[in-house]
């Protein structure tokens, strides 16, 4: 399935803002998402991701700026746009007393789908979510991971062209996350455009063709994950835990060993070309760190560089 880059963007935002009273949650963002693309919004809590998602879902309207979805204005064509997209919200929103099947069927009604279609798709989607054997159970009895999968299944009842996922794997164990990712790959392969917000870098690296980093309501960088890492971080990182010493005081002395360095409360990060070589030189110079970790640079480092904060903050 190929998508031409000159086709109409699925979503285009120009100078979009969202204000709640005095508080400006989104302060002028620009982006365009091509059909079939997996596009990520990376950022810490409070960066404006969820507000942006709600606007892109044609649920809330921008305070200013221009936003089109499928080339349409959501302020005028909201119901039509929402009929063509699926939303996986941050929190699960089911009727807990109803069965899995009824929750999906009821949602199909909201899209005004014919009953036979709803019934077929419900069976199909329960299969897709690996939940067929729980179809008649109450949603209340499901585990967190199962509920997330059901949320994704529900969001697909109208065969959306665009699927918007807000923190899809928060709170899930690694196994449940990988199962979810696998389902999302399948959708991507089928040509569904995905928009994903996350504060997990590995998730962003795995799932996104392209992403933007948001901070304080603004987009601070945009690009493919590997490109962002290449542009904003060194090849490798050497993490040092120095034990009892105050990290601040040693930062000056370590400066000459790295292209750049970040001092965190519990460790010092040295951005270098080769972590091996740098560690050897440190040993030669008489440094005896308590613990060391050598790794490749990640989106976390990009984020730290761009915002001065870690994603968990």
């Amino acid at each position: 399935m190929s998508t031409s880059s000159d086709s109409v963007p699925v979503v285009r935002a120009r100078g979009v803002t969202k204000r709640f009273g005095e508080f400006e949650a989104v302060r002028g963002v620009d982006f365009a998402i091509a059909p079939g693309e997996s596009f990520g919004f990376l950022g810490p809590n409070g960066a404006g991701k969820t507000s942006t998602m709600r606007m892109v879902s044609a649920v809330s309207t921008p305070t200013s700026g221009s936003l089109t979805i499928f080339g349409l204005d959501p302020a005028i064509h909201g119901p039509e746009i929402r009929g063509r997209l699926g939303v996986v919200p941050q929190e699960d929103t089911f009727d807990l007393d109803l069965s899995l099947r009824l929750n999906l069927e009821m949602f199909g009604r909201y899209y005004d789908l014919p009953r036979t279609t709803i019934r077929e798709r419900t069976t199909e989607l329960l299969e897709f979510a690996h939940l067929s054997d729980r179809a008649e159970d109450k949603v209340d009895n499901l585990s967190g991971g199962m509920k997330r999968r059901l949320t994704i299944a529900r969001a697909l009842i109208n065969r959306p062209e665009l699927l918007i996922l807000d923190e899809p794997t928060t709170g899930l164990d690694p196994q449940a996350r990988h199962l979810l990712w696998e389902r999302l790959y399948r959708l991507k392969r089928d040509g569904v455009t995905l928009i994903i917000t996350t504060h997990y870098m590995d998730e962003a690296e795995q799932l996104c063709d392209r992403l933007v980093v948001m901070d304080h309501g603004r987009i601070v960088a945009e690009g493919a994950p590997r490109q962002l890492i290449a542009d904003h971080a060194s090849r490798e990182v050497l993490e040092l835990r120095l034990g009892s010493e105050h990290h601040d005081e040693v930062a000056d002395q370590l400066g000459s060993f790295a292209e750049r360095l970040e001092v965190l409360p519990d460790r010092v990060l040295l951005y270098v070309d080769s972590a091996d070589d740098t560690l050897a030189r440190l040993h030669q110079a008489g440094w005896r760190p308590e613990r060391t970790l050598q790794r490749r640079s990640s989106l976390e480092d990009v984020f730290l560089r761009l915002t001065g904060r870690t994603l968990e903050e």
Partner: protein
Amino acid sequence: MSEPALLGWSRWRRAWWFHAMYYAQTWRGSVVSSVLLPLGYLGALGVGVGHLVAKHTGLVDGQTYLHFIAPSLLATTAFQLGEGESLWPVLAAVKWTRSYHAAVTTPLEPRDVLVGKLAWVATRAIAIGVFYTLIIAAVGAARSWWVLTLPLLSALVSLAFAAPLVAYAAHVDSDLSFPLIYRFGFVPMFLFSATFYPVSAYPGWLRPVVQFVPLYHGVALIRAACLGGSLAPALAHLAVLAVLAGGGFAWGQVTLRRRLID
């Protein structure tokens, strides 16, 4: 895929369907509150207390006691349906299960969610109204052709409470106030809306207070439709209920919109 804009007006029916589907799963409990309990009152009060009343004072406002309270029980059942569907269920849908938030990610607008909800309340109130019309006729309290309007009046009484209460529940952040509304609002209203004895039984200074209570107008209107009476007061009662329903609907559009999409 796309739908003509003109058909948008009927989107609320999809929200109505949700309630119907939900009710099909959970209807059993409502039989007790909407059918058995009022019938129990009718038996115990209408026949039991009615016997005492007949012995001592004879008629109440020119009616036997059974005929006097039969219309009250439709009015109070419609009222209880209206409030029962509105406080906790709505707060749950906007705050705990967030199922209304899910609904507005589909083609539904907050307005559709609201209209669907109120239409469902009206549907149940009409069903209750039909059932009680038969009971009222069976006990001989149907003295006017206006009884045929009882199903609609039942819906109006339900909506006069449901609409403002849905709006309120969509507005508040917690259910702290709900038990107080029950204890100091609903329970006294149920007992003192000239439900079980006529307004003439109250001391003179209290009568205007009783007439200020919303349910009083529901009881009086339904009683007039059963037993007959002059048109002017009936229209006044109708107007009070219509203002409550209409005002509640307008307020609900504001609070639900604010809650769901801003």
